[in-house]
């Protein structure tokens, strides 16, 4: 459903606003890498903008620190509807290795509704591009819930006979 909505609502260009919610800068560098001519996310119409009021997509890198929570909420409200939130990096997806630190509230999804998660520490630029392609509906995602993953295995198992 979300994909359908994406195709309708974002059929032209996605403008990104990139925010660091407490990252070590590894993920931020990779996001910038994706916008360089070598990986060139701009061929999908993606553009980095300097103000959340111009953006369609909020890219969040890093675990959410307690200090950043109010700012992140204000930032989310500043992005006009319809909007997507993409969590880049293991930290943003669930807190990474900092998930239980005293100053971390968790992944971005503890504060904002996250639409797409991109794994990795930091994710390769290709992984981010793959996430972009999945978000735009160009590619299918490569991971599936465990119940679906297990199906071929369990059908192969031979019942024990005596």
């Amino acid at each position, binding site marked *: 459903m979300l994909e359908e909505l994406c195709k309708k609502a974002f059929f032209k260009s996605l403008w990104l606003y990139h925010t660091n919610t407490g990252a070590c800068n590894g993920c931020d560098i990779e996001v910038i890498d994706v916008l360089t001519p070598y990986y*060139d996310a701009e061929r999908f119409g993606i553009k980095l903008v300097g103000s959340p009021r111009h953006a369609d997509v909020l890219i969040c890198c890093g675990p959410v620190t307690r200090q950043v929570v109010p700012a992140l909420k204000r930032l989310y409200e500043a992005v006009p509807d319809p909007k997507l939130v993409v969590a880049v990096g293991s930290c943003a997806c669930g807190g990474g290795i900092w998930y239980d630190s005293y100053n971390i509230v968790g992944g971005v999804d503890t504060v904002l509704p996250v639409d*797409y998660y991109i*794994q990795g520490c930091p994710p390769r630029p290709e992984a981010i591009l793959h996430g972009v392609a999945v978000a735009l509906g160009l590619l299918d995602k490569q991971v599936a819930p465990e119940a679906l993953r297990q199906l071929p295995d369990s059908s192969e198992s031979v019942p024990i006979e005596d």
Partner: protein
Amino acid sequence: MILSKLKQALICLLAGRVTLPYPAKPHPPDEGFRGYPEVDVDKCIGCGACAAVCPARLIKIEDLDQTTRRITRLLERCIFCGRCAEVCPEDAITMTRQFELASDQARQDLTHQCEIFMATCRRCGACYQPATPLDRIMQPGFRSDEIDRGGDLCQYENVCLESQQAENTTATVGEGE
């Protein structure tokens, strides 16, 4: 000024097309890249070494009952450091080169759960893993004919290492006194 601009234009023209055709064509990472840690459940003996070293502490070990150990991996937090694969005594974990893990429901898509058959210690009742495959077969519940084997267990059969050590220590202390 104009010359430098011309020089820049020349450099750009000579470089040609540099953009990677990535999402259209696959671009596999180099040898040694660490991606999704794949677990071979048949090899895993449930020792818990991976859970002890994981820096993200995402491997959770629970004993459901005295013969079942459930290992849950919340891989959405994995940083692909490969420590779990390094310490695993059975080489049950391999770091694959799969990096395309983007999803819209990371929690469901990247959680891995398995249940391992374990033995029960006759002394303390805790789950433990017998040392050799032969010992595993000797455990109650592993074979259907184990009911017939009652009564002929040796002193340390079906006793976990901690209980054995505790018993030995007590025995030594007792002798010393």
